[in-house]
């Protein structure tokens, strides 16, 4: 089920909220959430839901064994087995086709290429279970003894299919005890409205531009290539951060406090900072669980770094462009590490901004083109070696036709709301005014978004495919 559909917003969600409100006590409320989460997932994956349930059983059991044999051989064995299972499932369902294709290409053989559809959200819930198992092994969290509670952690529908990757430690206590205040619910509703607006009013509209120009890269001008890739970058940001907003908002309505997944990534001044602000739950996952894997000996620091970026690329998709994309960022982070923080800071801010945006949007180009030939065309075109010149009338028409959309999108990349909030929080009167305004604005956004959904092409959230 997709958040940005009328069916979800006005049928599934109200029914879920009603049942949740009617449930008494935390156990009943959790039961309601599990049931609705299972329906939510089964709506899109009526068969693969059993795979998810199997994953839940395997990891829950492994957690119990880890708890029982803490620090002993059984602990390590259960950890290794559970992580291996998780990675194997991800490998089979996400990468088997890609691996077979490349073996065939490399060794000129003809291994049958499995045609397996990617189960929705497998990349996200697999990482949740891996983090749970490793945290249990590291004794950062106590293994969850109740399967029902574990199932709630894994299946909680706000974050189930497209993140953020919520760790068990984040909601461990709230699974068993949580309070919801009026301000939580109002904040949650407003956040949902904001997320939907980002998705429908910005991301889907920017998608039309990016598809027009990048989808037609062979006929594009240099300006068109940059225009398209900038629109695409913003589209991904609003799409994915919009989903995260909805997830965080829904979580808050039900009393869960998920960590932020985005923090205005485009205001970054270097690539390292960009990844501290972009898809934070994924970056921190790799930082915590992959970066320091001791497999590179003395070169651990840089070996781990490139392993992280390789994993980041592969995680996004079974395609070479994603691998290139991950390593591409790895190279820039490596260079920035070599330069050092102090020296980086000495570089004029404007230069750092230009450098980081240039790298980021080229990165989005790599991310977009799964076909390496087209990626080459994109590079040629963007750097002035294309056949169609620098700018053409169609570029100008599109720019003018979409000028307000683009201006608003750029403005929304900046932390305007947080700045207003920070200032208004200092005085009660301004805080009250801003809260009231936010309520009205959120209501308006929800109405406008809903109206747009009547006439929309259904674009599933981009990160559904990962």
């Amino acid at each position, binding site marked *: 089920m997709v958040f940005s559909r009328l069916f979800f917003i006005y049928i599934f969600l109200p029914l879920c909220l009603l049942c949740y409100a009617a449930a008494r006590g935390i156990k009943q409320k959790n039961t309601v959430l599990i049931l609705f989460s299972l329906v939510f997932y089964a709506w899109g994956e009526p068969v693969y839901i059993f795979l998810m349930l199997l994953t839940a059983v395997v990891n829950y059991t492994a957690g119990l064994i880890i708890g029982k044999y803490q620090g002993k051989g059984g602990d390590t064995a259960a950890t290794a087995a559970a992580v291996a299972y998780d990675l194997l499932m991800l490998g089979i369902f996400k990468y088997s086709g890609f691996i077979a294709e490349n073996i065939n290409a490399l060794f000129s053989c003809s291994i049958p290429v499995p045609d397996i559809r990617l189960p929705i959200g497998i990349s996200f819930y697999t990482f949740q279970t891996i983090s749970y198992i490793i945290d249990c092994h590291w004794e950062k969290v106590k293994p969850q003894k109740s399967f029902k509670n574990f199932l709630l952690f894994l299946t909680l529908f706000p974050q189930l299919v497209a993140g953020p990757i919520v760790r068990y430690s984040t909601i461990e206590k709230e699974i068993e005890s949580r309070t919801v205040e009026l301000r939580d619910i109002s*904040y949650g*509703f407003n956040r949902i409205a904001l997320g939907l607006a980002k998705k429908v009013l910005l991301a889907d509209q920017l998608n039309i531009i990016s598809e027009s120009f990048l989808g037609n890269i062979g006929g594009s001008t240099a300006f068109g290539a940059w225009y398209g890739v900038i629109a695409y970058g913003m589209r991904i940001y609003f799409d994915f951060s919009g989903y995260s907003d909805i997830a965080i908002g829904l979580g808050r309505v039900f009393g869960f406090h998920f960590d932020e997944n*985005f923090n205005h990534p485009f205001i970054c001044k270097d690539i390292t900072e960009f990844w501290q602000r972009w898809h934070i739950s994924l970056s921190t996952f790799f930082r915590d669980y992959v970066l320091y894997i001791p497999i590179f000996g003395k070169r651990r620091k840089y070996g781990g770094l490139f392993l992280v970026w390789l994993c980041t690329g592969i995680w996004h998709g079974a395609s070479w462009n994603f691998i290139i994309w991950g390593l591409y960022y790895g190279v820039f982070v490596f260079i920035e590490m070599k330069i050092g923080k102090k020296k980086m800071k000495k570089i004029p801010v404007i230069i750092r901004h230009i450098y980081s945006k240039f790298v980021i949007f080229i990165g989005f180009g790599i991310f977009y083109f799964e076909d390496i030939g087209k990626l080459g065309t994109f590079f040629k075109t963007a750097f002035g070696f294309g056949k169609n010149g620098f700018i*053409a009338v169609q570029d100008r028409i599109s720019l003018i*036709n979409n000028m307000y959309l683009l201006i608003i999108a750029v403005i929304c990349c900046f932390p305007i709301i947080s700045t207003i909030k920070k200032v208004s929080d200092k005085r009660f009167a301004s805080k009250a005014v801003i*809260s009231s305004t936010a*309520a009205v604005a959120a*209501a308006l956004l929800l109405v406008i978004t809903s109206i747009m959904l009547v006439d929309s092409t*259904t674009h599933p959230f981009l990160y559904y495919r990962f």
Partner: protein
Amino acid sequence: MNEDNKSTSKDKEKNKSEDVNDKAVRPEPVISIEASDRENTAIDIPIKAKKLKKQRRKTALNSIALANIILMGAIFAGGFVYVALLPHETKADDENRMLTTFPDFSAKSYLNGKYTAGIADYFDDTVHDRAHIKEFIADNITPLKGRKYGDGEDGAELYGSGFIQKPAAVVTTSPPVTTTAGVQSPVPTAETTAVPETTAPPQEEEPAQGELTNNILIVNKRGVTLYGGAWGAEQEYASFVNEYKEALGGKNVYSMVLPTSSSFYIPEQYSNLAYSEKDDFDKIEASLKGVIPVDAYNILNAHKNEPIYSRTDHHWQPLGAYYAAQEFALMAGVPFADLSEYETVTLPGYVGTLYMYTQSATLLNNPEDFVYYKPKTPVTVTQYDTHFQNPVAANLLLDPAPMPNSGYYMVFGSDERIVHVNTECKNGRNLVIFKDSYGNALLPMLTSSFENIYLCDIRYFDLNAIDFIDSVEATDVLFAMCSFSAVGANRSCIHNNLNK
């Protein structure tokens, strides 16, 4: 909001610290005073006042939060009533399609996800009064994206990127669709559009379902699908038609490739957005061997100031078909009825397919007249399926009256059929027309010119074309399709129909 509220855990901590502060003011003052004297004591008054003030503020903020919840709750409740309970629409006249129906349950449909997806599609697609909501969007929301390029009448909107691009392979025959994905209903009349995609390079990337695949320029209140050039495909078209001539020997074979509005209505400043159809027509003519070329371009160009093309639809108007048919009749040496011998029917308020593709307020707010012509002489019309089986008596033109928003398809009907028209013209000339949807409008115009006319769509034809032509004893074979079909993917159908 969003990441603006940095970290939710920070909020949590803040709330906690507020609680701690509350607790901090809770202890009694150090100096012990009898309760009865407290009201008169100055020491704890500021503490009380501060606490009261804080409570008042908290209450105020909670009241705002409550109002916020009520407001949003009302929207959710209203939305539930609107989406789930109000009567559902069944038909979208502006999109010329039936809306999604509630899916039938079966184990198979459930397991492959179609059943649940169908339910969501049903509720999304059939909301009450959707036509007015769409109009509201076109009128009030879409224009907020930007403004027209240029001023006044020449102000332009571009849908798609509008590049001239050399295609390297065939294009998809799917019509461009901008409506809700997965909800296209199988209404024949809505599925037969022949706007191909030669402007964009669809061969490079299969367009995702539901996305704009054509490049459409809207200027001077007119939508124009931008022609992207044949780039060698015109030679292939000519060779395919030549194959027919070779196989048919003495029969007359004609090629009439029809220009689109791209040739006539693009203002000078935007002329480089489209390639020249005329150049490609000339190349086709030069490559034909024994096939008689029919020059529709010049006669249409001579009448371009008349309403020969629809402004809101990618098709021509029947008047354009009349002039093209006149040229063909001249080349074929058959009689041709003057327009005065037809009954003129005008359907006002027509907003056609280009609005459907673009949702442009400019087109929506500038409807046009759809004018068509009914032959006064009686004809016998029989429709067959694409195997030339199952004959059914039919009318030459459909009655658009039941459709509030009638137009090209409503008058000329769908393409997935073979139509046989027997006329009162007893000249022994039997014509087979291989066409796309443009060709439909030619049929009424030729009812005074041939004794029998067989109208076959190249895309929906399940017989060997030569066998069919022989079986109906055709004397003349006309290929009549717009440029997009002749040099787009549809051209391969011409060849394929020889080998069925």
